[in-house]
Protein backbone atom coordinates (compact mmCIF):
# COMPACT_ATOMS: atom_id res chain seq x y z
CA UNK A 1 0.00 0.00 0.00
CA UNK A 2 2.83 2.36 0.86
CA UNK A 3 4.48 1.42 -2.40
CA UNK A 4 1.26 2.24 -4.24
CA UNK A 5 1.13 5.79 -2.95
CA UNK A 6 4.88 6.17 -3.31
CA UNK A 7 4.56 5.21 -6.97
CA UNK A 8 1.85 7.77 -7.52
CA UNK A 9 3.88 10.43 -5.76
CA UNK A 10 7.01 9.58 -7.73
CA UNK A 11 5.11 9.60 -10.99
CA UNK A 12 3.69 13.04 -10.32
CA UNK A 13 6.95 14.43 -9.00
CA UNK A 14 9.12 13.19 -11.86
CA UNK A 15 6.60 14.30 -14.44
CA UNK A 16 6.67 17.77 -12.92
CA UNK A 17 10.48 17.76 -12.97
CA UNK A 18 10.43 16.78 -16.64
CA UNK A 19 7.87 19.44 -17.40
CA UNK A 20 10.10 21.93 -15.67
CA UNK A 21 12.94 21.03 -18.02
CA UNK A 22 10.84 21.46 -21.12
CA UNK A 23 9.35 24.68 -19.75
CA UNK A 24 12.80 26.14 -19.24
CA UNK A 25 13.77 25.16 -22.74
CA UNK A 26 10.73 26.86 -24.14
CA UNK A 27 12.49 30.14 -23.41
CA UNK A 28 16.08 29.25 -24.16
CA UNK A 29 17.62 30.27 -27.41
CA UNK A 30 17.25 27.77 -30.18
CA UNK A 31 20.42 26.28 -31.58
CA UNK A 32 19.08 25.86 -35.08
CA UNK A 33 20.77 27.59 -37.94
CA UNK A 34 18.43 28.67 -40.72
CA UNK A 35 20.48 27.01 -43.39
CA UNK A 36 19.99 28.70 -46.73
CA UNK A 37 19.86 32.12 -45.09
CA UNK A 38 22.60 31.60 -42.56
CA UNK A 39 25.60 29.47 -43.32
CA UNK A 40 28.11 28.09 -40.91
CA UNK A 41 31.67 28.89 -41.71
CA UNK A 42 33.30 25.54 -42.06
CA UNK A 43 36.75 24.90 -40.66
CA UNK A 44 39.45 24.92 -43.29
CA UNK A 45 40.03 21.20 -42.94
CA UNK A 46 36.47 20.40 -43.95
CA UNK A 47 36.41 17.54 -46.37
CA UNK A 48 33.77 18.27 -48.94
CA UNK A 49 34.24 18.60 -52.68
CA UNK A 50 37.54 17.56 -54.20
CA UNK A 51 39.43 20.13 -56.18
CA UNK A 52 42.48 19.73 -58.38
CA UNK A 53 44.84 22.53 -59.29
CA UNK A 54 45.72 21.28 -62.75
CA UNK A 55 48.71 23.60 -63.03
CA UNK A 56 50.30 21.72 -60.16
CA UNK A 57 49.44 18.23 -61.27
CA UNK A 58 52.39 16.27 -62.53
CA UNK A 59 50.33 13.19 -63.41
CA UNK A 60 52.06 10.85 -60.97
CA UNK A 61 48.84 8.89 -60.34
CA UNK A 62 49.53 8.66 -56.61
CA UNK A 63 46.02 9.83 -55.84
CA UNK A 64 44.46 7.34 -58.20
CA UNK A 65 46.31 4.51 -56.53
CA UNK A 66 45.41 5.74 -53.07
CA UNK A 67 41.72 6.01 -53.73
CA UNK A 68 39.92 3.11 -52.07
CA UNK A 69 36.83 3.44 -54.25
CA UNK A 70 38.43 4.20 -57.61
CA UNK A 71 36.69 7.46 -58.17
CA UNK A 72 39.69 9.16 -59.80
CA UNK A 73 40.63 8.42 -63.37
CA UNK A 74 43.81 9.91 -64.82
CA UNK A 75 45.30 9.59 -68.25
CA UNK A 76 48.64 11.09 -69.11
CA UNK A 77 50.60 11.62 -72.27
CA UNK A 78 54.31 12.09 -72.13
CA UNK A 79 55.46 15.51 -73.10
CA UNK A 80 57.70 16.12 -76.07
CA UNK A 81 61.43 16.06 -75.63
CA UNK A 82 62.03 19.72 -75.66
CA UNK A 83 58.56 20.77 -74.71
CA UNK A 84 58.37 22.92 -71.61
CA UNK A 85 55.29 22.11 -69.59
CA UNK A 86 56.09 24.57 -66.89
CA UNK A 87 56.64 24.10 -63.21
CA UNK A 88 54.38 23.34 -60.29
CA UNK A 89 54.05 25.82 -57.49
CA UNK A 90 56.59 23.96 -55.39
CA UNK A 91 59.10 24.02 -58.15
CA UNK A 92 58.75 20.56 -59.54
CA UNK A 93 59.11 20.22 -63.27
CA UNK A 94 56.15 18.84 -65.16
CA UNK A 95 56.91 16.13 -67.65
CA UNK A 96 53.51 14.75 -68.53
CA UNK A 97 50.43 16.09 -70.21
CA UNK A 98 47.55 15.19 -67.90
CA UNK A 99 44.95 14.85 -70.60
CA UNK A 100 42.28 13.36 -68.42
CA UNK A 101 41.67 13.92 -64.73
CA UNK A 102 38.15 12.85 -63.83
CA UNK A 103 36.80 12.65 -60.31
CA UNK A 104 33.38 11.11 -59.84
CA UNK A 105 32.05 12.83 -56.74
CA UNK A 106 29.18 10.39 -56.77
CA UNK A 107 31.60 7.63 -55.93
CA UNK A 108 33.89 9.63 -53.67
CA UNK A 109 33.88 8.53 -50.05
CA UNK A 110 35.46 11.71 -48.73
CA UNK A 111 38.26 9.88 -46.98
CA UNK A 112 40.92 12.32 -48.21
CA UNK A 113 43.35 9.50 -48.74
CA UNK A 114 44.18 10.98 -52.12
CA UNK A 115 45.27 14.29 -50.65
CA UNK A 116 48.20 13.06 -48.64
CA UNK A 117 50.26 11.22 -51.25
CA UNK A 118 50.17 14.12 -53.70
CA UNK A 119 53.74 15.39 -54.01
CA UNK A 120 52.73 18.83 -55.18
CA UNK A 121 49.57 19.48 -53.20
CA UNK A 122 47.54 19.71 -56.38
CA UNK A 123 44.53 17.72 -55.17
CA UNK A 124 42.77 18.88 -52.07
CA UNK A 125 39.41 18.80 -50.38
CA UNK A 126 37.56 22.06 -50.22
CA UNK A 127 34.86 23.22 -47.78
CA UNK A 128 32.53 23.57 -50.75
CA UNK A 129 29.53 21.37 -50.06
CA UNK A 130 26.70 22.69 -52.20
CA UNK A 131 27.00 20.59 -55.30
CA UNK A 132 23.73 18.75 -55.29
CA UNK A 133 22.28 18.04 -58.73
CA UNK A 134 19.37 16.22 -60.21
CA UNK A 135 21.59 14.30 -62.58
CA UNK A 136 24.17 11.92 -61.27
CA UNK A 137 26.37 12.29 -64.31
CA UNK A 138 27.03 15.94 -63.49
CA UNK A 139 28.89 14.79 -60.41
CA UNK A 140 31.64 13.58 -62.65
CA UNK A 141 34.05 16.49 -62.56
CA UNK A 142 36.58 16.78 -65.39
CA UNK A 143 39.59 18.83 -64.43
CA UNK A 144 41.76 18.36 -67.48
CA UNK A 145 41.47 21.20 -69.97
CA UNK A 146 42.57 19.41 -73.08
CA UNK A 147 40.13 19.27 -75.97
CA UNK A 148 39.54 15.94 -77.69
CA UNK A 149 41.50 17.06 -80.72
CA UNK A 150 44.44 18.04 -78.59
CA UNK A 151 44.29 14.74 -76.84
CA UNK A 152 44.21 12.74 -80.01
CA UNK A 153 47.00 14.88 -81.37
CA UNK A 154 49.08 14.35 -78.28
CA UNK A 155 48.33 10.67 -78.27
CA UNK A 156 49.21 10.45 -81.92
CA UNK A 157 52.48 12.17 -81.22
CA UNK A 158 53.18 9.91 -78.31
CA UNK A 159 52.39 6.89 -80.39
CA UNK A 160 54.72 8.12 -83.08
CA UNK A 161 57.38 8.92 -80.56
CA UNK A 162 56.96 5.53 -79.04
CA UNK A 163 57.15 3.94 -82.42
CA UNK A 164 60.17 5.98 -83.24
CA UNK A 165 61.68 5.05 -79.93
CA UNK A 166 60.85 1.42 -80.48
CA UNK A 167 62.26 1.63 -83.95
CA UNK A 168 65.35 3.31 -82.63
CA UNK A 169 65.62 0.70 -79.97
CA UNK A 170 65.17 -2.04 -82.48
CA UNK A 171 67.70 -0.45 -84.71
CA UNK A 172 70.07 -0.11 -81.82
CA UNK A 173 69.53 -3.73 -80.92
CA UNK A 174 70.02 -4.76 -84.45
CA UNK A 175 73.14 -2.71 -84.70
CA UNK A 176 74.46 -4.22 -81.52
CA UNK A 177 73.68 -7.66 -82.79
CA UNK A 178 75.34 -7.00 -85.99
CA UNK A 179 78.32 -5.62 -84.25
CA UNK A 180 78.38 -8.75 -82.14
CA UNK A 181 78.12 -10.88 -85.16
CA UNK A 182 80.78 -8.92 -86.82
CA UNK A 183 82.97 -9.42 -83.81
CA UNK A 184 82.24 -13.15 -83.72
CA UNK A 185 83.44 -13.78 -87.18
CA UNK A 186 83.53 -12.23 -90.57
CA UNK A 187 83.90 -15.39 -92.53
CA UNK A 188 80.27 -16.26 -92.49
CA UNK A 189 78.43 -15.19 -95.60
CA UNK A 190 75.97 -12.43 -95.21
CA UNK A 191 72.43 -13.32 -95.84
CA UNK A 192 71.05 -11.65 -98.89
Amino acid at each position, binding site marked *: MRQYFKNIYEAIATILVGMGVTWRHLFTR*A*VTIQYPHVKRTLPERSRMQLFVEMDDCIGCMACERACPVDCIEIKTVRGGKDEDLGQTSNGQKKRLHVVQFDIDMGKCCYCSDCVFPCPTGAIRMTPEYEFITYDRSTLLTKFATYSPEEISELEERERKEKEAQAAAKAAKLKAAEEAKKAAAGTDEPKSE
Partner: protein
Amino acid sequence: MEPLVQFFFNLLPFLSDWPEWLALTVIGVAAAIMMFGFIAIFALIAIWLERKISGHMQDRLGPMEVGGWHGWAQTIADTVKLLVKEDIIPEKADRPLFKLAPMIVFTAALSGFAVLPWSSEFIPADLDVGLLYILSISSFAVIGILMGGWSSNNKWSLYGAMRGVSQVVSYEIPAALALLAVIMSAGTMSMRGLVMAQSGNILDWNVFNFFPLTTIAFFIYFIASLAEVNRTPFDLPEGESELVGGFHTEYSAMRFAFFFLGEYANMFVVSAIAATVFLGGWLPPFEALGFIPGPLWFVGKALLLVFVQMWLRWTLPRLRVDQLMYTCWKVLTPFSMAIILLIGLWKVL
Protein backbone atom coordinates in the same frame (compact mmCIF):
# COMPACT_ATOMS: atom_id res chain seq x y z
CA MET B 1 -32.69 24.87 -28.63
CA GLU B 2 -33.93 28.22 -27.48
CA PRO B 3 -30.73 30.08 -26.68
CA LEU B 4 -29.21 29.34 -30.05
CA VAL B 5 -32.36 30.30 -31.91
CA GLN B 6 -32.59 33.46 -29.86
CA PHE B 7 -28.96 34.20 -30.62
CA PHE B 8 -29.52 33.87 -34.33
CA PHE B 9 -32.76 35.83 -34.24
CA ASN B 10 -30.92 38.66 -32.52
CA LEU B 11 -28.13 38.38 -35.03
CA LEU B 12 -30.32 38.11 -38.13
CA PRO B 13 -33.75 39.54 -37.26
CA PHE B 14 -35.30 38.66 -40.65
CA LEU B 15 -35.04 34.96 -39.80
CA SER B 16 -38.00 35.20 -37.43
CA ASP B 17 -40.25 36.06 -40.36
CA TRP B 18 -39.39 32.86 -42.15
CA PRO B 19 -41.39 29.66 -41.67
CA GLU B 20 -40.21 27.95 -38.56
CA TRP B 21 -38.83 24.79 -40.13
CA LEU B 22 -36.83 26.74 -42.67
CA ALA B 23 -35.44 29.09 -40.06
CA LEU B 24 -34.48 26.17 -37.86
CA THR B 25 -32.80 24.36 -40.72
CA VAL B 26 -30.86 27.45 -41.66
CA ILE B 27 -29.80 27.97 -38.07
CA GLY B 28 -28.77 24.36 -37.68
CA VAL B 29 -26.72 24.36 -40.85
CA ALA B 30 -25.17 27.71 -39.97
CA ALA B 31 -24.17 26.46 -36.53
CA ALA B 32 -22.69 23.27 -37.98
CA ILE B 33 -20.70 25.25 -40.52
CA MET B 34 -19.50 27.59 -37.82
CA MET B 35 -18.32 24.65 -35.77
CA PHE B 36 -16.65 23.06 -38.75
CA GLY B 37 -14.95 26.33 -39.57
CA PHE B 38 -13.84 26.66 -36.00
CA ILE B 39 -12.38 23.14 -36.07
CA ALA B 40 -10.54 23.83 -39.30
CA ILE B 41 -9.10 27.11 -38.07
CA PHE B 42 -8.36 25.71 -34.66
CA ALA B 43 -6.58 22.72 -36.19
CA LEU B 44 -4.52 24.98 -38.40
CA ILE B 45 -3.48 27.10 -35.46
CA ALA B 46 -3.06 24.21 -33.06
CA ILE B 47 -0.88 22.23 -35.42
CA TRP B 48 1.27 25.25 -36.03
CA LEU B 49 1.40 25.89 -32.28
CA GLU B 50 2.28 22.31 -31.59
CA ARG B 51 5.17 22.53 -33.99
CA LYS B 52 6.39 25.79 -32.57
CA ILE B 53 6.02 24.63 -28.99
CA SER B 54 7.72 21.34 -29.63
CA GLY B 55 10.40 23.17 -31.56
CA HIS B 56 11.17 25.61 -28.83
CA MET B 57 10.99 22.98 -26.12
CA GLN B 58 13.59 21.05 -28.07
CA ASP B 59 15.87 24.02 -28.69
CA ARG B 60 14.71 24.21 -32.26
CA LEU B 61 12.72 26.88 -34.02
CA GLY B 62 9.98 24.89 -35.68
CA PRO B 63 8.65 25.97 -39.06
CA MET B 64 10.16 29.27 -40.15
CA GLU B 65 9.90 29.45 -43.90
CA VAL B 66 6.41 29.30 -45.32
CA GLY B 67 4.45 32.52 -45.07
CA GLY B 68 7.19 34.69 -43.67
CA TRP B 69 6.63 35.39 -40.01
CA HIS B 70 7.61 32.25 -38.08
CA GLY B 71 6.24 30.02 -40.77
CA TRP B 72 2.63 30.82 -39.95
CA ALA B 73 1.41 29.35 -43.25
CA GLN B 74 3.18 26.03 -42.85
CA THR B 75 0.04 24.13 -41.86
CA ILE B 76 -1.90 25.64 -44.73
CA ALA B 77 0.82 24.52 -47.11
CA ASP B 78 0.72 21.05 -45.61
CA THR B 79 -3.05 20.93 -45.91
CA VAL B 80 -2.78 21.82 -49.57
CA LYS B 81 -0.18 19.15 -49.96
CA LEU B 82 -2.43 16.58 -48.28
CA LEU B 83 -5.32 17.61 -50.51
CA VAL B 84 -3.43 17.03 -53.73
CA LYS B 85 -1.69 13.89 -52.59
CA GLU B 86 -2.59 10.56 -54.08
CA ASP B 87 -5.23 8.78 -52.07
CA ILE B 88 -3.88 5.30 -51.56
CA ILE B 89 -6.14 2.45 -50.59
CA PRO B 90 -4.43 -0.89 -50.03
CA GLU B 91 -5.53 -3.49 -52.52
CA LYS B 92 -6.71 -6.01 -49.95
CA ALA B 93 -8.39 -3.41 -47.77
CA ASP B 94 -12.08 -3.53 -47.10
CA ARG B 95 -12.86 -0.51 -49.22
CA PRO B 96 -16.27 0.66 -47.91
CA LEU B 97 -15.19 0.46 -44.30
CA PHE B 98 -11.78 1.91 -45.09
CA LYS B 99 -13.42 4.97 -46.59
CA LEU B 100 -16.03 5.28 -43.88
CA ALA B 101 -13.69 5.14 -40.91
CA PRO B 102 -12.12 8.63 -41.05
CA MET B 103 -15.56 10.13 -41.60
CA ILE B 104 -16.92 8.46 -38.50
CA VAL B 105 -13.98 9.58 -36.41
CA PHE B 106 -14.29 13.13 -37.63
CA THR B 107 -18.07 13.21 -37.32
CA ALA B 108 -17.79 12.04 -33.74
CA ALA B 109 -15.37 14.84 -33.00
CA LEU B 110 -17.61 17.37 -34.72
CA SER B 111 -20.72 16.17 -32.87
CA GLY B 112 -19.00 16.91 -29.62
CA PHE B 113 -19.07 20.61 -30.49
CA ALA B 114 -22.88 20.56 -30.46
CA VAL B 115 -23.15 21.04 -26.71
CA LEU B 116 -20.16 23.23 -25.95
CA PRO B 117 -21.26 26.42 -24.18
CA TRP B 118 -19.35 29.26 -25.79
CA SER B 119 -21.20 31.88 -23.84
CA SER B 120 -24.49 32.25 -22.04
CA GLU B 121 -26.16 33.06 -25.36
CA PHE B 122 -24.39 30.83 -27.76
CA ILE B 123 -24.80 27.13 -27.08
CA PRO B 124 -25.56 25.15 -30.23
CA ALA B 125 -27.69 22.68 -28.28
CA ASP B 126 -28.26 23.09 -24.59
CA LEU B 127 -29.23 19.51 -23.92
CA ASP B 128 -30.51 18.47 -20.57
CA VAL B 129 -28.16 15.51 -20.78
CA GLY B 130 -25.29 17.48 -22.34
CA LEU B 131 -22.43 15.91 -20.46
CA LEU B 132 -23.78 12.40 -20.93
CA TYR B 133 -24.16 13.15 -24.62
CA ILE B 134 -20.50 14.06 -24.94
CA LEU B 135 -19.49 10.86 -23.17
CA SER B 136 -21.68 8.83 -25.51
CA ILE B 137 -20.27 10.49 -28.61
CA SER B 138 -16.76 9.27 -27.83
CA SER B 139 -17.92 5.68 -28.39
CA PHE B 140 -18.44 6.55 -32.06
CA ALA B 141 -14.81 7.53 -32.37
CA VAL B 142 -13.89 4.15 -30.94
CA ILE B 143 -15.87 2.35 -33.60
CA GLY B 144 -14.26 4.54 -36.23
CA ILE B 145 -10.80 3.67 -34.99
CA LEU B 146 -11.66 -0.01 -34.92
CA MET B 147 -13.13 0.22 -38.40
CA GLY B 148 -10.08 1.97 -39.80
CA GLY B 149 -7.66 -0.35 -38.11
CA TRP B 150 -9.43 -3.48 -39.19
CA SER B 151 -10.26 -2.53 -42.74
CA SER B 152 -6.66 -1.52 -43.53
CA ASN B 153 -5.79 -5.21 -43.54
CA ASN B 154 -2.55 -4.46 -41.80
CA LYS B 155 -1.55 -6.20 -38.63
CA TRP B 156 0.00 -3.11 -37.10
CA SER B 157 -3.18 -1.17 -37.78
CA LEU B 158 -5.19 -3.88 -36.15
CA TYR B 159 -2.97 -3.77 -33.08
CA GLY B 160 -3.39 -0.03 -32.97
CA ALA B 161 -7.15 -0.33 -33.27
CA MET B 162 -7.38 -2.96 -30.55
CA ARG B 163 -5.25 -0.86 -28.24
CA GLY B 164 -7.26 2.22 -29.06
CA VAL B 165 -10.53 0.55 -28.28
CA SER B 166 -9.46 -1.01 -25.02
CA GLN B 167 -7.90 2.27 -23.99
CA VAL B 168 -10.80 4.55 -24.78
CA VAL B 169 -13.40 2.18 -23.35
CA SER B 170 -11.42 1.83 -20.13
CA TYR B 171 -10.64 5.50 -19.68
CA GLU B 172 -14.24 6.48 -20.21
CA ILE B 173 -14.92 5.15 -16.75
CA PRO B 174 -12.60 7.36 -14.68
CA ALA B 175 -13.48 10.31 -16.93
CA ALA B 176 -17.21 9.77 -16.40
CA LEU B 177 -16.75 9.22 -12.68
CA ALA B 178 -14.69 12.38 -12.32
CA LEU B 179 -17.38 14.34 -14.14
CA LEU B 180 -20.01 12.65 -12.01
CA ALA B 181 -18.39 14.11 -8.92
CA VAL B 182 -19.12 17.56 -10.29
CA ILE B 183 -22.56 16.63 -11.57
CA MET B 184 -23.37 15.55 -8.04
CA SER B 185 -22.40 18.87 -6.59
CA ALA B 186 -24.02 20.92 -9.36
CA GLY B 187 -27.12 18.78 -9.69
CA THR B 188 -27.39 19.09 -13.43
CA MET B 189 -25.93 17.58 -16.57
CA SER B 190 -26.71 20.54 -18.78
CA MET B 191 -23.56 22.38 -19.80
CA ARG B 192 -25.20 25.71 -19.22
CA GLY B 193 -26.42 24.68 -15.82
CA LEU B 194 -22.94 23.48 -14.90
CA VAL B 195 -21.43 26.84 -15.76
CA MET B 196 -24.17 28.73 -14.04
CA ALA B 197 -23.55 26.77 -10.87
CA GLN B 198 -20.02 28.16 -10.81
CA SER B 199 -20.83 31.83 -11.10
CA GLY B 200 -18.96 34.07 -8.76
CA ASN B 201 -15.22 34.46 -8.69
CA ILE B 202 -12.44 31.97 -9.23
CA LEU B 203 -12.99 30.26 -5.88
CA ASP B 204 -16.51 29.29 -6.89
CA TRP B 205 -15.23 27.31 -9.82
CA ASN B 206 -15.73 23.63 -9.46
CA VAL B 207 -12.03 22.97 -9.44
CA PHE B 208 -11.78 24.80 -6.10
CA ASN B 209 -15.31 24.23 -4.92
CA PHE B 210 -14.81 21.14 -2.82
CA PHE B 211 -11.09 21.63 -2.37
CA PRO B 212 -9.19 19.35 -2.73
CA LEU B 213 -11.70 16.74 -3.88
CA THR B 214 -12.79 18.36 -7.11
CA THR B 215 -9.22 19.44 -7.82
CA ILE B 216 -8.22 15.80 -7.82
CA ALA B 217 -11.28 15.02 -9.91
CA PHE B 218 -10.11 17.67 -12.36
CA PHE B 219 -6.71 16.05 -12.69
CA ILE B 220 -8.27 12.64 -13.04
CA TYR B 221 -10.50 13.92 -15.80
CA PHE B 222 -7.60 15.64 -17.50
CA ILE B 223 -5.45 12.51 -17.45
CA ALA B 224 -8.31 10.31 -18.61
CA SER B 225 -9.15 12.73 -21.38
CA LEU B 226 -5.56 12.59 -22.58
CA ALA B 227 -6.03 8.87 -22.92
CA GLU B 228 -9.35 9.30 -24.69
CA VAL B 229 -7.86 11.48 -27.37
CA ASN B 230 -4.76 9.30 -27.70
CA ARG B 231 -2.23 11.90 -26.70
CA THR B 232 1.14 11.16 -25.15
CA PRO B 233 1.74 9.54 -22.71
CA PHE B 234 -1.26 7.51 -23.81
CA ASP B 235 -0.67 7.52 -27.57
CA LEU B 236 -0.39 3.77 -27.76
CA PRO B 237 -2.90 3.30 -30.59
CA GLU B 238 -0.63 5.23 -32.88
CA GLY B 239 2.65 4.72 -30.99
CA GLU B 240 4.99 5.21 -33.89
CA SER B 241 7.95 3.43 -32.38
CA GLU B 242 5.97 0.26 -31.84
CA LEU B 243 3.10 0.17 -34.30
CA VAL B 244 4.52 2.28 -37.12
CA GLY B 245 1.42 4.48 -37.30
CA GLY B 246 -1.14 2.47 -35.42
CA PHE B 247 -4.64 2.45 -36.83
CA HIS B 248 -3.90 5.08 -39.46
CA THR B 249 -0.76 3.44 -40.85
CA GLU B 250 -2.34 2.81 -44.22
CA TYR B 251 -4.14 6.13 -44.54
CA SER B 252 -2.83 8.88 -46.70
CA ALA B 253 -3.85 12.18 -48.17
CA MET B 254 -7.22 13.63 -47.10
CA ARG B 255 -8.36 10.54 -45.25
CA PHE B 256 -5.34 10.83 -43.03
CA ALA B 257 -6.02 14.52 -42.67
CA PHE B 258 -9.48 13.72 -41.36
CA PHE B 259 -8.04 11.48 -38.67
CA PHE B 260 -5.65 14.25 -37.82
CA LEU B 261 -8.37 16.87 -37.81
CA GLY B 262 -10.45 14.58 -35.63
CA GLU B 263 -7.62 14.28 -33.16
CA TYR B 264 -7.19 18.01 -32.84
CA ALA B 265 -10.92 18.59 -32.64
CA ASN B 266 -11.09 16.01 -29.87
CA MET B 267 -8.26 17.72 -28.06
CA PHE B 268 -10.29 20.88 -28.07
CA VAL B 269 -13.51 19.15 -27.05
CA VAL B 270 -12.03 17.47 -23.99
CA SER B 271 -10.25 20.65 -22.99
CA ALA B 272 -13.45 22.60 -23.46
CA ILE B 273 -15.36 20.16 -21.29
CA ALA B 274 -12.73 20.43 -18.60
CA ALA B 275 -12.91 24.20 -18.90
CA THR B 276 -16.70 24.15 -18.70
CA VAL B 277 -17.09 21.67 -15.92
CA PHE B 278 -14.15 22.59 -13.74
CA LEU B 279 -12.90 26.01 -14.75
CA GLY B 280 -16.11 27.97 -15.00
CA GLY B 281 -16.66 27.96 -18.75
CA TRP B 282 -17.20 31.42 -20.11
CA LEU B 283 -17.06 33.05 -16.68
CA PRO B 284 -14.20 35.39 -15.88
CA PRO B 285 -12.12 34.55 -12.79
CA PHE B 286 -12.99 37.89 -11.19
CA GLU B 287 -15.95 40.15 -11.62
CA ALA B 288 -13.59 42.95 -12.54
CA LEU B 289 -12.56 41.10 -15.67
CA GLY B 290 -16.14 40.79 -16.84
CA PHE B 291 -15.59 43.27 -19.68
CA ILE B 292 -13.80 40.56 -21.66
CA PRO B 293 -16.48 38.65 -23.54
CA GLY B 294 -17.37 35.14 -22.43
CA PRO B 295 -16.37 33.21 -25.56
CA LEU B 296 -12.85 34.54 -25.19
CA TRP B 297 -12.64 33.24 -21.65
CA PHE B 298 -14.02 29.93 -22.74
CA VAL B 299 -11.67 29.50 -25.68
CA GLY B 300 -8.79 30.86 -23.66
CA LYS B 301 -9.27 28.33 -20.89
CA ALA B 302 -9.65 25.52 -23.38
CA LEU B 303 -6.52 26.61 -25.24
CA LEU B 304 -4.60 26.72 -22.00
CA LEU B 305 -5.48 23.08 -21.40
CA VAL B 306 -4.61 22.26 -25.01
CA PHE B 307 -1.23 23.84 -24.38
CA VAL B 308 -0.74 21.66 -21.32
CA GLN B 309 -1.60 18.63 -23.43
CA MET B 310 1.09 19.62 -25.89
CA TRP B 311 3.53 20.36 -23.12
CA LEU B 312 3.00 16.89 -21.70
CA ARG B 313 3.34 15.34 -25.09
CA TRP B 314 6.79 16.81 -25.62
CA THR B 315 7.93 15.85 -22.17
CA LEU B 316 6.82 12.35 -21.45
CA PRO B 317 7.57 8.87 -22.75
CA ARG B 318 4.80 6.48 -23.59
CA LEU B 319 3.24 3.95 -21.26
CA ARG B 320 2.99 0.25 -21.97
CA VAL B 321 -0.38 -1.44 -22.43
CA ASP B 322 -0.48 -3.11 -19.06
CA GLN B 323 0.66 0.06 -17.32
CA LEU B 324 -2.03 1.94 -19.15
CA MET B 325 -4.62 -0.43 -17.76
CA TYR B 326 -3.03 -0.29 -14.33
CA THR B 327 -3.23 3.48 -14.31
CA CYS B 328 -6.85 3.36 -15.33
CA TRP B 329 -8.23 0.60 -13.18
CA LYS B 330 -6.00 0.70 -10.14
CA VAL B 331 -5.25 4.38 -9.80
CA LEU B 332 -7.73 6.65 -11.52
CA THR B 333 -10.91 4.61 -11.04
CA PRO B 334 -10.54 3.97 -7.30
CA PHE B 335 -9.58 7.58 -6.72
CA SER B 336 -12.54 8.91 -8.65
CA MET B 337 -14.87 6.54 -6.82
CA ALA B 338 -13.49 7.68 -3.51
CA ILE B 339 -14.03 11.28 -4.55
CA ILE B 340 -17.64 10.58 -5.46
CA LEU B 341 -18.15 8.94 -2.10
CA LEU B 342 -16.55 11.82 -0.25
CA ILE B 343 -18.45 14.46 -2.15
CA GLY B 344 -21.65 12.55 -1.45
CA LEU B 345 -20.82 12.55 2.24
CA TRP B 346 -19.96 16.24 2.09
CA LYS B 347 -23.27 17.00 0.46
CA VAL B 348 -25.25 14.95 2.95
CA LEU B 349 -23.49 16.16 6.07
